[in-house]
């Protein structure tokens, strides 16, 4: 008796044909979501620190300039992490008794460095130079986000290659006047496109899209 399958199998078999397509599509979508997820990129992940240092308080509250602590940003590839001494410049006078600052004082007395947790970890094979960007008019907030609103620092961008390329393709969309670089509240003006093109010309900014700009 040749009838092997039940009626319903027709529907089933046709469904499975399309179903497989949907499954493939779903997998692709899921992978994409994962790659860009904060789990994979650490974007927006708030990091525990030995001392709960609040940029919000020090920048917005006290109006301290970025360069007071990250003093190498204009000179070097690294922006620089402040030595304990920098903290103590003020905290020898204020909050001298505060418990939260105990590790800082300890470090200063025992000469043992504080071990901060890195917030922005670029892959080892990608080279980023702060001075190159800062001196050409790319502001801190462009990459680091609104640090002045971060009680504990977190990573603003995805640090994925396309995140870098977005700006490298069209610097004019992100560049700002030199004197605005450290202004955390700067927002692109209405005519950014046109102003940007002007700045790109003035600061001799090149759209560097070749590999060895960042990989060597």
């Amino acid at each position, binding site marked *: 008796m040749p009838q092997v399958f039940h009626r319903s199998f027709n529907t089933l078999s046709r469904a499975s044909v399309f179903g497989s397509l949907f499954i493939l599509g779903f997998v692709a979508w899921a992978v994409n979501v994962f790659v860009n997820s904060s789990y994979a990129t650490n974007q927006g992940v708030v990091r525990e620190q030995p001392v709960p240092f609040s940029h919000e308080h020090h920048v917005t509250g006290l109006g301290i300039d970025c360069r007071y602590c990250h003093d190498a940003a204009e000179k070097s590839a690294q922006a620089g992490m402040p030595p304990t001494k920098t903290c103590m410049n003020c905290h020898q006078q204020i909050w001298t008794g505060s418990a939260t600052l105990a590790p800082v004082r300890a470090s200063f007395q025992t000469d043992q460095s504080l071990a901060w947790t890195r917030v922005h970890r670029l892959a080892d094979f990608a080279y980023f130079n702060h001075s190159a960007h800062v001196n050409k008019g790319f502001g801190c907030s462009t990459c680091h986000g609104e640090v002045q609103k971060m009680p504990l620092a977190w990573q603003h961008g995805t640090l994925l*290659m396309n995140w870098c390329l977005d700006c490298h393709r069209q610097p004019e969309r992100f560049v700002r006047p030199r004197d605005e670089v450290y202004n955390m509240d700067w927002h692109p003006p209405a005519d950014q496109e046109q102003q940007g093109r002007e700045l790109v010309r003035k600061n001799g900014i090149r759209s560097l899209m070749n590999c060895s700009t960042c990989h060597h």
Partner: protein
Amino acid sequence: MSAEVHAETPPVRTPAGSPVLAPGHDFATVTDKISALVLTRPTSRGWWIGFSLSFALVMLLLYTIAYLLTTGVGIWGINVPVGWGFAIVNFVWWIGIGHAGTLISAILLLLHQQWRTSINRFAEAMTLFAVACAGLFPLLHMGRPWYFYWLAPYPNSMQLWPQFRSPLVWDVFAVSTYLLVSLMFWYVGLVPDMATLRDRSTSRLGRVVYGILAMGWRGSARHWYRYESAYGLLAGLAAPLVVSVHTVVSFDFAVSVLPGWHSTVFPPYFVAGAIYSGFAMVLTLVIPIRAIYGLEDFITSRHLQNMAKVLLATGLIVAYGYLMEAFGAFYSGNPYERYLQVNRMIGPYAPMYWSLLVCNVLGPQLLWFRAFRTNPVLLFLVSLVVNVGMWLERYVIVVVSLHRDFLPSSWGMYSGTVWDWAMFAGTIGLFLSLVFLFLRFLPVISIFEMRTLLPEAKVKEEHG
């Protein structure tokens, strides 16, 4: 309708004479004999032994691959200057073998060569298995195989694409296209026979499995009509594809600047070589199987003879290719090309070069003699020689060209390590295992096409 059809003269004869189907068969016997191989014939001890041996080699393959992935391609003999070794040699060898099937099915179909019918199913299967083996190598010869997908175009967070000027990317497209098309060609051909097996099968499981594969084929005239049309179109598409695939493979070499690679003769001579090795492998497999499964009725001496002739013809083309290479080298006046040819002939790898010529050029000359074409054993031996010869050819092309290129300072030597051989043997095991499974579970010969060869298949019109 030719007069010949009216005459009641089974067996069926093709214009050329000797039969493509032995006398005394009708629809029922053809159907039953072939489907019996799969459905009723008990699994012989021979099959088990053969399969276990090949499967042992598959285990070796898996072990080698595991070691390769954890340690690196450094376990092979490759070096600078010889950056490609066994991996690419084997790749080209296998992919070449993988050309016979689709060629037989597609081109011979378009040429209305009836004798193809009884061997195409088998040749196509062999093609698929060979391509599967071939596919392993380009993948595993990479330094970081886990990034193989970077060769495929897909939107990614690096905003990077494959480098479409690289022949390796062409390879990816050519080989995967070839694999897919051959697979479809093979499967489409199988569908009606799946239906036959479904209807013949005595076990529930058999009926369900073959039933699913048959997709509910019921032999409706309308279906047959579209089926024929699709099959014809596929053949039409596959024919140029076959030619293109090995052309693209030859580009891997021809596009480079290397003496011995940088040559315009490569595409045609690679394609010929591919068909050559493909037919050789078909013979190597068909002759024993035909004997073991008693298929002499379906795969007749006629088939062997025709394949032997194709072998001879392509062999001559390949020989011409060698000749042109040598001629070009000396004619070009290019010192590097000239040195390469001399180095092939008297350099450290000279023995390989000469044995390749013996295998590929002298070997097939025996087929001028009818005796060799008609005697399965001798033909089998010749086909083996050709298989070896074609492997050597690829070895000479890949290794000998690389080991001495432009600057004498960086000249080097290459020899395969035990892992190179393990990998090669492993893929042979994989190939054979698949063949054994195929023999066991699928009809080796296209049943419905065999039916069409029977005289009863011809509709007798009353008022013709």
